[in-house]
């Protein structure tokens, strides 16, 4: 793969890297043969996806650049199935410093060339700067299957489309250190408040709430009244990107526990952040588990959800997932469960340790006690085997595994991928 970016696009690319760095420690560089944007604009020709996932698997971000974004873009020798393109996993801490100072990039960098060199296992990023200076960075990468989350936004009952600065203005009232916030939607208003976890530290915690009338949004759809709690820190990168580029932000979500998707798009790129939301387990209990399950496909991988009290689930290969990930028996019992609102394609990786270390981006989420559980959105399947105890068959399907479009079943194939 070899692409050339010029001028302002380098800065936009850098800003995308900044936003992705808020999510995870690793960056996937994923050249795609046929990029498909989730708004169903099929970009003809090749596109480049940049993705990141947090180690708790509760946040995923993807920036998809259409061929029009680049001055020049080629995949190199590639077969028709598209499976020959190299997918690179890079360390965020190698990539972020190259784009850290956006103002100096704006002033000095004329063009940027990014290429993947297979023989040397290096991604080469070259900045062609003023005064004839060229800076070349060789980053080693690990070849790794791409990670994708497929979010069927058309299935979400609630939609908000906010003008560029609105969400930024709303979150400005919360301290930068605020981990999680709760977004509530009713037919009249939308409110944001910081998430109150209980505990003893009353003296220190300031509670902030703000509410807006729905008229302030460009578009809204209230399917269900819902309160969703998600990690604000991970979202700030995207909000900053949207503000810089004056792009409205679309929010798709459902009831608590279902993932929420924030997306921005313009003619040449599309960015998405999908975050898991907390489920309040007060309304649920393990006994409800079996009653609320959706039928699963035979090739269902372990979902992100692990049964409460089923210890063996923890010992299975969820290295990226802290043991606190417990079951989310869905209170929704809801029609939303089937078909699943979020589907994940996570092909095998060769790294048995999964996608990251067990420390989390969303600190408080993963240390919360069982009474509030994060529903992890993505889950990687190691292989296509069934779980030996057949557990998977009884879990609500939030994520399942497929290793390619041809294996996807029924109408799930129509869901756009990110």
């Amino acid at each position, binding site marked *: 793969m070899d692409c050339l970016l010029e001028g302002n696009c380098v800065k936009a690319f850098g800003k995308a890297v900044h936003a992705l760095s808020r999510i995870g420690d690793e960056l996937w560089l994923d050249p795609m043969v046929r990029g498909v944007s989730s708004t169903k604009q099929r970009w003809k020709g090749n596109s480049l996806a940049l993705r990141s996932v947090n180690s708790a698997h509760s946040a995923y971000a993807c920036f998809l650049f259409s061929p029009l974004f680049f001055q020049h873009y080629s995949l190199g020798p590639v077969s028709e199935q598209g499976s020959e393109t190299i997918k690179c996993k890079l360390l965020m801490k190698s990539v972020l410093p190259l784009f850290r100072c956006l103002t100096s990039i704006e002033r000095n960098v004329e063009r940027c060339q990014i290429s993947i060199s297979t023989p040397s296992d290096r991604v080469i990023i070259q900045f062609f700067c003023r005064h004839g200076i060229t800076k070349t960075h060789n980053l080693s990468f690990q070849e790794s299957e791409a990670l994708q989350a497929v979010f069927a936004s058309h299935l979400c009952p609630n939609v908000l489309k906010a003008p560029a600065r609105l969400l930024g203005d709303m979150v400005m009232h919360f301290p930068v250190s605020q981990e999680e916030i709760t977004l509530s939607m009713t037919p009249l208003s939308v409110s944001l408040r910081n998430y109150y976890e209980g505990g003893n530290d009353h003296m220190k915690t*300031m509670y902030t709430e703000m509410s807006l009338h729905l008229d302030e949004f460009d578009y809204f759809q209230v399917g269900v009244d819902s309160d969703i709690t998600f990690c604000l820190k991970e979202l700030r990168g995207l909000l900053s990107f949207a503000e810089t580029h004056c792009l409205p932000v679309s929010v798709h979500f459902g009831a608590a526990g279902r993932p929420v998707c924030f997306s921005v798009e313009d003619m040449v790129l599309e960015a998405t952040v999908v975050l898991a939301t907390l489920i309040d387990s007060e309304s649920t209990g393990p006994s409800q588990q079996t009653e609320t399950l959706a039928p699963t496909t035979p090739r269902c991988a372990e979902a992100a959800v692990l049964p409460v009290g089923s210890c063996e689930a923890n010992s299975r290969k969820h290295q990226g997932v802290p043991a606190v990930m417990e079951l989310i028996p869905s209170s929704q019992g809801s029609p939303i469960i089937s078909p699943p609102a979020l589907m994940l394609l996570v092909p095998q990786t060769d790294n048995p340790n999964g996608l990251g270390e067990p420390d989390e981006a969303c600190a408080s989420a993963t240390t919360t006690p069982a009474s509030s559980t994060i529903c992890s959105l993505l889950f990687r399947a190691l292989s296509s085997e069934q779980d030996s105890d057949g557990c998977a068959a009884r879990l609500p399907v939030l994520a399942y595994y497929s290793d390619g479009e041809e294996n996807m079943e029924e109408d799930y194939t129509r869901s756009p991928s990110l």
Partner: protein
Amino acid sequence: MKLLLILSPGVVTTISKLTKMCVLRLTPDNLFFVLSGKVANGGVSMWCELSQANFFDEYQMEGVSSEDNEICLEVTPENLSRALKTVQNAKTVKVKLTKKHCPCLTIAAELPTMSSINRVVTHDVPVDVIPRRLWHEFKEPNMPDFDVSIYLPPLKTIKNVVDRMKNLSNFLVMEANLNGEMNLKIETDLVSVTTHFKDLGNPPWGDDASQDGGPSQSRDPEAMAQARVDIRKLQQFLVGQQVNPSKAMCNIVHERVVHLILLHEDVSLQYFIPAVA
């Protein structure tokens, strides 16, 4: 208790840099931010007084009882400062004492928007109500029986000097005399550094503030009163000052305490730093 106000965040931000927790005393005419000199603070104490009329469009309070018509709250000024900063552009701001999961100062603001309907922001800043029996700890401090009183040089200048001295020593000696001269000195095994300020001027009360009137009248104008203080405490005081006060003074009780007084238009701030041996 209800207070409706437009409160400048500046004062609260300054205080938030000085201390993590302090006491807010509310009386019918004034607000006070008080930090009493306990061991935990390193003996530093602070008294900041604001007249409510300068800040509030409407101010209503009812104290604990009619004889003790005041309210005493322990608050984290940083929370308050943050809340006030975000509502700087508000059309209206209301501060109320409420009881949510615990007693709170609730700051409710209406923010202007493009549409006709306002955005409402509410911040609940948790506070602790201080019982009456402890109120004596938070009384206005007496003006100490100081030996010298002098006007301070511009705070920014002092801050620059103190910042550099901090790298060399943990303790700094402040000395001043009635001739408008002030020195800041540090001394270590390797080096000693002194910064001299001249022609600062002395406040008029310098001569007769002493209660028994004796020693200060005959005080040699050249004689320095000095106190050795922990440099970090002085630095902490200086860091918080964002605006130049209309008057800044320093009283020194020889080898006992440094008393700093800042007067802004609407606010007065006093800060006591105890001397160390």
